[in-house]
């Protein structure tokens, strides 16, 4: 057979390998900082750029997309050319892939630290970068499929099945999850609301783990492990079975991230059972890897590369066993929101992704440079330090998680929370947080040791950028199945067919779960009381997103007595219909905030409390590990996008267009009226600022802290007010009301006034915390109707008093009205308009 001559592109592999090393070090360093910040909050440095809420997403993105992303490309570009016996389809696409990816990483680092984020975990990057990712990713896929088409080999090898599935699935997931409407260059709102957003997000988030951290690394394993071990792959049939079952089942398992949260039961059940069914297919990969080493185990003792692979594959097996277990609802009830999840992902990340990458690089670099590894001993040292670091990182976190979750759930003998103070459960695990930081340091030190070893290896050799290779051309074979050919063997030589089957396999799970969530009304029962955010609250919410508060605080109360006692009523689907994006979070380093605006609840804190707390959390609670946010007090909130934000929200179905009269921000032409928006913003902000000023704080209404307080006071507010109203409606009607027929008693009114109103308005209505009621000025109107309205519905910081019977209210209104013009002594300065 004639041999064709061609050249492997080694240069692109080298570039990706260097990028992997560089970003690996950066990503781990950022991780180390994040871990240290939890142990020592002063390391947040009081700067917006360096607070945990921004550092943590940078760490996850840097490790997932920069470190392992470049590792995937390194492995794929090296192995695909050799497995398909051809150069990559297009050098231009290879370069677009490389440089595009590095630009994305750079932009990610800048934007995430600047607080430009969508807050969707592992998809935090804003829309322009999302588009860039899609372009670069498609150029990778295009390059891959082009290479497949011009291949010289008849059948495509299992490693490439996995690379293909990764490309197809990540493209679908990334695009599906990133559908958002831009507000500005740096801000967008996702089209999905609340529960839908949660389902789409974890369909993405879970499968980013599947198709970015798992399948490409199985591809890497299937090439580099048999190569390094010089052993044939244990079972071809196992490859087929576990490949298809894995990619099909993975896509259904996303809802296990939302167990016991405000998600319909059927979706939770699907999340549970598909996670359980995922166990065997995942272990198929581990077993095929470990059994391939049969006959090579003696060499594991000496070879650092094989050690990395063995521990990497074993770590994969451990996390894929732990994953299904964590998806059982009883286990999840304990594990979710704790450091258990963090330990779990680091077994996967440090063990599987990290060690497979290190093993691959130690094998690959000497071959690229036609030399031997500079020091096998140093590589072995790296392995042992890394393994020790991984254990020292994860074991304390498991311990911390068990400790904390048991403390959260413990009741006293009389049935009350044993640790009502959330902070106690944090203080308890601080030693574990310190130890795991040390573990991270060891793991990092191992990776740092790798650098001089690689540099010296590179220096001792010489790379051939375009390596000569020979292979016979691909034989033309009948398109149809040949006699004796298994169906799978048949599609292995039909790359496009194969790709289509992969697409079908991965798309089903997502469609079955997401479409009903969006189209079937009963999945998200409406709650009448739930109202949209005011412009001020919306801006406050965007600050919450900007600062990455979701990295430490959840906003969803699960239906457990230990949570409803601590936080208040559990969360319902209908509460989140105006949330673009949802903010449930996935970790409780601090307490849940879903009820921080629940009037009369355990989580409600007055504005002044938040004011002091954000400024210096350690002053409020000495042992708190929350960072301070001093810039909230200096920054004037940038309202330049406010109009556009309201417009986008209207497009997304939020009733700012008059459907909710109290939230009507449009003019008669149906366009957003910026004056209405600004007026609503300012009047609400001024009330909060006033309250703070009255307590002696020097703050103006336009600062960020005001919006933040307004937002926190919105969470759970609507349903708490509805509860109070319902309570009042259920109280037996006072018989006297009807008999009295409009007659009022000023004496009775005075009594009510003295016990309910005097604390804020003074015994004679002279004012205090509240305005003077005895002068001839009014803020909200002086008619009986207006007074009645203010009492019943509240105004500004004045809470609504819905507890009065009709008679009581009438008496109180009459008495209040009678105060006007009495000009009591020591009267507060007039506020509002003069009464004519």
């Amino acid at each position: 057979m004639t041999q064709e001559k061609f050249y492997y592109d080694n240069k692109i592999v080298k570039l990706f390998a260097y990028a992997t090393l560089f970003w690996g070090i950066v990503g781990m360093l950022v991780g180390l900082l994040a871990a240290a910040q939890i142990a020592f909050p002063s390391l947040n440095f009081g700067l917006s750029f360096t607070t945990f809420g921004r550092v943590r997403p940078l760490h996850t993105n840097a490790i997932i997309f920069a470190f392992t992303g470049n590792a995937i490309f390194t492995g794929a570009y090296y192995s695909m050319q050799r497995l398909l016996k051809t150069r990559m389809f297009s050098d231009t696409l290879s370069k677009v892939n490389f440089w595009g990816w590095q630009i994305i990483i750079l932009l990610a680092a800048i934007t995430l630290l600047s607080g430009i984020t969508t807050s969707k975990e592992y998809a935090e990057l804003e829309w322009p970068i999302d588009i860039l990712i899609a372009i670069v990713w498609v150029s990778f896929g295009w390059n891959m499929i082009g290479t497949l088409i011009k291949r010289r080999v008849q059948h495509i090898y299992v490693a490439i099945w996995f690379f293909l599935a990764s490309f197809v699935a990540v493209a679908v997931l990334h695009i599906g999850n990133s559908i958002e409407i831009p507000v500005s260059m740096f801000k967008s709102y996702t089209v999905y609301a609340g529960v839908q957003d949660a389902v789409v997000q974890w369909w993405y988030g879970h499968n980013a783990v599947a198709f970015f951290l798992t399948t490409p690394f199985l591809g890497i394993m299937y090439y580099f492990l048999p190569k390094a071990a010089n052993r044939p792959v244990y079972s071809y049939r196992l490859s087929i079975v576990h490949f298809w079952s894995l990619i099909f089942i993975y896509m259904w398992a996303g809802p296990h991230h939302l167990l016991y949260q405000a998600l319909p039961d059927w979706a939770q059940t699907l999340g549970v059972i598909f996670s359980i069914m995922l166990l065997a297919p995942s272990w198929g990969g581990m077993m095929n890897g470990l059994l391939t080493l049969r006959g090579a185990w003696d060499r594991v003792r000496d070879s650092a590369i094989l050690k990395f692979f063995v521990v990497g594959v074993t770590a994969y097996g451990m996390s894929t066993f732990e994953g299904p277990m964590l998806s059982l609802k009883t286990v999840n009830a304990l594990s979710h929101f704790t450091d258990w999840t963090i330990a779990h992902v680091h077994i996967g990340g440090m063990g599987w992704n990290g060690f497979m990458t290190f093993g691959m690089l130690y094998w690959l670099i000497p071959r690229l440079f036609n030399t031997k590894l500079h020091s096998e001993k140093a590589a072995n040292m790296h392995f042992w330090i890394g393994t020790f670091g991984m254990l020292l990182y994860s074991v304390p976190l498991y311990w911390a998680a068990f400790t904390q979750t048991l403390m959260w759930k413990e009741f006293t003998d009389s049935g009350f929370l044993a640790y009502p103070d959330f902070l106690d459960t944090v203080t308890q695990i601080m030693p574990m947080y310190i130890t795991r930081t040390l573990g991270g340091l060891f793991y990092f030190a191992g990776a740092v040791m790798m650098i001089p070893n690689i540099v010296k290896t590179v220096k001792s050799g010489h790379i051939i950028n375009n390596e000569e290779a020979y292979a016979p051309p691909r034989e033309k074979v009948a398109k149809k199945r040949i006699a004796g050919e298994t169906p799978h063997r048949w599609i292995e030589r039909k790359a496009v067919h194969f790709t289509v089957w992969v697409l079908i396999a991965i798309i089903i799970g997502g469609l079955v779960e997401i479409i009903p969530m969006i189209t079937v009304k009963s999945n998200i029962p409406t709650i009448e009381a739930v109202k949209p955010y005011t412009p001020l609250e919306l801006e406050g919410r965007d600050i919450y997103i900007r600062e990455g508060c979701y990295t430490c605080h959840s906003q969803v109360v699960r239906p457990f007595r230990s949570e409803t006692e601590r936080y208040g009523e559990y969360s319902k689907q209908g509460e989140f219909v105006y949330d673009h994006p949802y903010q449930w979070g996935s970790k409780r380093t601090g307490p849940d905030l879903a009820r921080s605006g629940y009037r009369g609840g355990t989580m409600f804190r007055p504005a002044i409390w938040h004011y002091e707390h954000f400024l210096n959390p350690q002053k409020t609670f000495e042992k708190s590990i929350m960072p301070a946010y001093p810039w909230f007090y200096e920054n004037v909130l940038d309202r330049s996008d406010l109009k556009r934000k309201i417009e986008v929200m209207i497009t997304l179905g939020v009733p700012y267009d008059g459907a909710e009269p109290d939230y009507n921000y449009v003019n008669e032409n149906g366009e957003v009226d910026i004056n209405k928006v600004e007026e609503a913003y300012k009047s609400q902000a001024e009330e909060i600022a006033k309250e703070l000023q009255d307590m002696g704080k020097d703050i103006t209404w336009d600062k960020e802290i005001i919006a933040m307080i307004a937002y926190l006071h919105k969470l759970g507010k609507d349903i708490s007010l509805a509860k109070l109203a319902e309570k009042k409606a259920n109280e037996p009607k006072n018989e006297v009301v009807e008999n009295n027929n409009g007659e009022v008693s000023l004496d009775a009114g005075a009594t009510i006034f003295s016990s309910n109103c005097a604390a804020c308005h003074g015994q004679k209505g002279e004012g205090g915390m509240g305005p003077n009621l005895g002068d001839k000025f009014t803020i909200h109107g002086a008619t009986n109707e207006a007074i009645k309205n203010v009492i019943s519905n509240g105004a500004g910081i004045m809470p609504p008093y819905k507890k009065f019977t009709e008679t009581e209210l009438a008496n109180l209104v009459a008495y209040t009205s009678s105060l006007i013009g009495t000009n009591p002594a020591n009267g507060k300065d007039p506020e509002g308009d003069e009464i004519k």
Partner: protein
Amino acid sequence: MENKNTDPKEVYTEYNEKFDKKLMIDHDYDGIKELDNPPPPWLMWLFYFTVIWSVWYLAWFHWFDMGRLQEADYAHELEEAAEKYKVTAMDEETINILTAEEDLNRGSEIYKKSCVACHGDAGQGGIGPNLKDADWIYGSEIKDVFGVIKNGTDKGMTSFKSLGDEDILKVSSYVLKKL
């Protein structure tokens, strides 16, 4: 050591002798060969078991309605708690102020942890009102103070019901007696 490129043909010689029959002749990818081993049977059984378990799980909860789903489970938990703890729930109207030194000491501990941030270390007030003076916005009876701590108020006082009735009574007594 593992660093020289080896010719794949040589590598398999020894192995081929042992597993000759299992080597798939036409499977050669850049020197990587594949064996025709079946998947480990225990792994396949594990897979079948998880599938059967899943069907059972689905049927148990959604077709036969045998299991308690989220809301039913919560209701059940509440019932159980009501049963278990019913003796100790306190009636606000009939509670009496505590005077025993140990109760007041416990009250003081709780005060230091939960109340100081707003009411000051000596009850002088701050974020929240002064607790030392004779003015009581919500009343000065033990039941009033107890109620305020337990249920919070409309003006911003947080509900501390998660402290538990006994501790609330102790801290209420401490506030009234000692501040």
